[in-house]
């Protein structure tokens, strides 16, 4: 799974993070290194759709938080992926 928007949402699912923290977290749990351009492209799209929002801070590093709509979307995507994975696994067992 390499969709940057899903990776960012998954990273924010367990708490607020700024860009560099997201980049590190994603590399850790998905073994994918998002480049700065890709990461901020995803952040821009997610914020426009209202799935994440910036958290007030005085730091240059801007943390983001997943919104209710973002969490709902992530749950739908995870359920869908789960169904695909389970089906694929079942079929592989019976092959």
């Amino acid at each position: 799974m390499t969709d940057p928007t899903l990776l960012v949402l998954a990273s924010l699912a367990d708490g607020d993070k700024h860009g560099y923290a997201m980049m590190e977290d994603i590399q850790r749990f998905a073994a994918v290194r998002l480049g700065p351009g890709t990461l901020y492209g995803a952040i821009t799209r997610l914020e426009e759709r209202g799935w994440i929002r910036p958290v007030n801070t005085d730091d240059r590093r801007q943390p983001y938080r997943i919104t209710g709509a973002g969490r709902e979307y992530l749950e739908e995507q995870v359920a869908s992926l789960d169904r695909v994975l389970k089906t694929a696994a079942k079929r592989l067992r019976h092959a």
Partner: protein
Amino acid sequence: MRRCIGWAAYLYPASWRKRYGAEFDALLDDANVRWRDLADVLRGAFIMQMTNWKSYGRNAVAAAVACAILALAGSFLIPNRYESKAVMRISPQSPSADSTPAEVDEDLTLRLEQMQVQVLGRSSLIELIQEPPLDLYKEERKRMTIADVAEKMRTHDIKIRLYDTPAGGKPGAQAFEVRFAYPDRYKARQVVRELTGKFMMLNHTLAQKAGLEGNPGIEQFTTADLPATPVMPNHVAFLWVGLWAGLLLGLLATLVWRRPKWSLQMAGFAAAGFVLALAVAYFIPNVYVSRAALLIAGTGDIARLTDRLQEIEQRVLSPDNLARLIQLPDLDLYKKERAHMPLSDVVEKMRSKDLRIHLYQALPGRHAQAFEISFRYPDRFKVQAMVRELSRQFVESSLGNPRERGYTLELLETADLPQTHAYPNRLSIAILGAFAGLLIGLVTLRWRRSRRAQLTPAPAAA
């Protein structure tokens, strides 16, 4: 590497940099950026620019399609205009045995010129417009003077086009078509009939004067047709205009939507320019123009006639004569100027700026030259009186035996009384003011932006 990627980040849209620039820089400072990140940032900047401009393109295309459809639909609501046409042929009336073909052609063209100027003259067209069975341009006559309606009819709706000599025609004969476009096809045909009738009648009068009644000299080649299909509106042209107007409108609307504050400021500058220019324009006094048309005709070529015209012009428009006219009690022109300028300077100003002798473009031929006297002045009654006086002097200068002088000079159109002022065009001045306001706004806003950028400290690098 970090510096290269920092520069590449400048390729992102300004609005994006304003929102994410500082935190993006912080990310670049924290992350151990690599060469491939440069490509990633460049790709990101490209995508963001495309996303930024995509809305302009999408809205412009949507507006263009919508406006094109509206314009096309609207074009079906515009009343049709039908064009009727008749073709006439003018041929030599009294070619003497020793006349050369060139002389015959000259005579022919002279007759045609004279007839055309008179048939399409202001008084002739006004008479036609007001004829009860025709009763043309009812709506236009409610908001325009009858003289302006006649001018519109002559310049926009009537077309006289000369053909080459038709095959099988008489030697030296010249064919020409008379066209008229109007929303009512029956009236369009009737007007063409009337115009061709006027040509015939005038030709008959001229022939009678010259004692040449035996030969018609002018005949109708084809009679006025009843047009079946309209020439206007041109639906394809409407579609194109709608398309381009929509494109511009879409771009403008997107600009306003995306940059409302900037658009509002620019609109403010434009409105201020418009109002200021309009206010200034109202301080400029109205200037009226009156015109009279005359025709000089003779036996010599056009160069000789022009020389004669210049002689008369020098006499009528001499400083002494103009000074006398200026001081006539009925006219009493340039009172303010005369109070602080010598009369000779006032005359010079009048001659160089306000008084014009304009030669009409002559039709092929070398025996006649139509010309116009026009005068501009803030008083519409005085402007007419002045042109009337000048045209009277031009005509009087030609009285006597035309054979001795070699030319005749006749008045085709008397001096008109202008109903509306010719200058200043206040709307144009105001629109120019709005454009100037836009330019000043652009420069001011850019200057303010660069000044703000200079005053704002750059975010500290980690």
